[in-house]
């Protein structure tokens, strides 16, 4: 029997006031897949990922992660998930080491093991240079790197990555990509949101694009592209965002 999908979402809706941030989303992410979840600003990507993380309750619809229904089996699911969330979920008054160790212990690692792994991960991400620096004083790139280190500490099966490369320098981003690809080779599943389409094109084997809370296209890279189209061409075409700069005569 095939193992269930890593992420299975049915008719997911999230309403804010009169506006549907996510409107009847259906999504299937196979296991072992590097999945790119794309959309223009305000399309509903972060809302979707927050619902997957259990931070925002859906207005309606169902979510299954690693074959287990959410929120009914939330504890078992969360135990097997690694998160690179938006910056608001970091603890600004902890150091990078303290935070990473803390996350390890949240996933049930013994304190010495959590501390050892935290040290190794921070060294790997070159965050061990200023051990007393608080996360609140980190740059954007450093905050993403520490979030990535914390996401890896318990060796999860499914990663939910919200703009993980945002603000990260080229060297750091390359390291992160290598680590993520290595995890996929070992059977992990990646669910990635990013605005950097070149990165998505290079890393992901499947992509979904949402617009105004609705799925507009989904499939493998080969299925999405026609002829010599790049992912950027596909993206602009399907979200109908082509604008002519020439229309501004003075520009």
């Amino acid at each position, binding site marked *: 029997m095939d193992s269930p999908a890593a992420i299975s979402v049915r008719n997911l809706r999230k309403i*804010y*006031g009169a*506006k549907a*941030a996510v409107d009847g989303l259906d999504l299937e992410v196979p296991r072992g897949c590097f999945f790119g979840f794309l959309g223009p600003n305000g399309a509903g990507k972060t*809302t979707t990922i927050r619902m997957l*993380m*259990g*931070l*925002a*309750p859906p207005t309606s619809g169902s979510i299954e992660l690693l074959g287990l229904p959410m929120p009914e089996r*939330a*504890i*078992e699911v*969360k*135990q097997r998930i690694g*998160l690179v*969330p938006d*910056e*608001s*979920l970091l*603890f*600004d*008054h*902890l*150091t990078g080491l*303290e935070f990473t160790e*803390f*996350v390890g*212990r*949240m*996933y*049930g690692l*013994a*304190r010495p093991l959590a501390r050892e792994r935290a040290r190794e991960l921070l060294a790997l991400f070159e965050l061990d240079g200023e051990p*007393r620096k*608080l996360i*609140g*004083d980190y*740059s*954007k790139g450093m905050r993403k790197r520490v979030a990535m280190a914390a996401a890896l500490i318990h060796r999860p099966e499914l990663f939910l990555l919200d703009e993980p490369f945002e603000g990260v320098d080229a060297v750091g981003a390359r390291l992160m990509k290598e680590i993520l690809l290595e995890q996929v080779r070992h059977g992990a599943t990646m669910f990635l949101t990013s605005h950097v389409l070149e990165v998505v094109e290079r890393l992901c084997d499947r992509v979904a694009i949402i617009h105004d809370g609705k799925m507009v296209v989904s499939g493998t890279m080969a299925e999405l592209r026609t002829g010599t189209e790049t992912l950027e061409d596909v993206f602009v075409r399907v979200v109908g965002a082509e604008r002519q700069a020439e229309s501004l005569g003075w520009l």
Partner: protein
Amino acid sequence: MGKQVRAIVWAQWRTLRNYLPRSNKITFWLTGLFGLVWYGGFAFLAVFAAILFSKADELTFIHTVLPTVLLVCFLYWQFIPILMASMGSSLEIKKLLVYPIPRGKLFTLEVLLRISTGAEMLLLLTGVGVGLLLNPGIPLWGPFLLIFFVAFNLFCSAGVRDLLVRLMARRRIREITALLFVLAAALPQVLMLAGFQKHIRLFFTKDPSPFWPWTAAGRLAQGEFSWIAAGVLLAWTAASYVFGRWQFERGLNFDYGAAASQGASSGAKTSRLEWFYRLPSALLPDPLGALIEKELRFLSRSARFRLVFMMGFSFGFLIWVPMAFGRASTPHSMVSDNYLTFVSVYALLLLSDALFWNSFGFDRSAAQVYFLAPLKLSTVLVGKNITAAFFVLIEICAVSTVCALLRLPLSVIKILEAVTVTIVVTMFLLSIGNLSSVYSPRAVNPVKSFRSAASGRMQAMLMLTFPLALTPVLLAYLARYAFESEWAFFGVLLVGIAVGALVYWYSMGSAVTAAEQRKEQIIAALSRGEGPIGG
């Protein structure tokens, strides 16, 4: 679960410890010393309470004073964690939702964290408990019932904090809540000034109602068992558990995105205010007009500014009017004769952080633009200063309107006096503020209604400069007193305006030169912490 609880308590401890300033050794040691004095003081109080409550011949005194001590503990326990949450030194349990922790256990953790944020009261209650235990006139079981009172406080504190955090997330309600909170904090002082000392004393000394949790806990802790007291304490503890749990669950399910979207301005309201924002551009040429328009838009949308602006004509009245016309005041005192001026100058003091001292810090992302755009920095400062003067003028109008509505004694000459005094003080504050904005800029979050502690340097500067700015006004009052003439008073004020204009002119030149030289330091200082230009 045990591992996770230990980890969370450890993280809370680290968070509190990391709150100590680290970069500056002197500040670190001073803060450490302050902590030592603070907690040492409570430890001393606890020991004092232990000694006092251990005396067998003080049972009548204990009977009278214990409910009051417990009431004070309750108020402190509910008040302090709210302040700490506003400063970010308390772990946010909602952030733990992403980790594999059962939701039911999260409430236990929240309650545990309430212990660490109200440690002073736990220390004091331990002292009280030990004293009662050692008292031969009190049965041994009595002091142990204080545990129920501690539980009552912890549950209640968790609930109050969650309720306030949710209220603070809603745009319109945020300012009103913060204002009510500040007004509540000023209430004891207002009651005292308004001449209610006798009532307050009576409230604390007369035999309190047995249906309050502090009375019931006090009686039981002294070994005065009654089924009514036991029932009351249990009922309050159960009710606070239900309240705490209910608010906590609502907090976990609370959607900040939805709250923000509900508070968004409607299109109609935006268009109604549009004429007001565009007024400067209609009257003044660009770039000055555009700069003032931007400042008006920004400040009137900043939660922090709106709060201090509202406080100017509400909190100011609460402070000064009882002092001027309360039962404790004398007729025709200095305060009652000049209350409008007092309230107006006090409003200036409240507005000064936003309008004068740190004019780049509020909208720090714009500071880079000022240096990059082909603009004279003097134009930027003049734009900011005109906006400040405009808001000061509106504030005085609001103060006068409130006076008229409250039917307080008001005359044209008194309004003129308040306006002239405010103009003089404003001119000096603008002069000093332009320099401090350039020499001591600091990043401020305009969204946070509660202000976190300003830097010590800034506080010290406020203490020094405000009396300096008030000097011409004091001289004017002195002239009025010496010559018994309004002409002398307004004459000195006019001289003050002329001197203020000169000082403003020179300080503007110095500020512009310093800004050019300190461009890099200013941008670096404004980039610290999270924010639009935080790197």
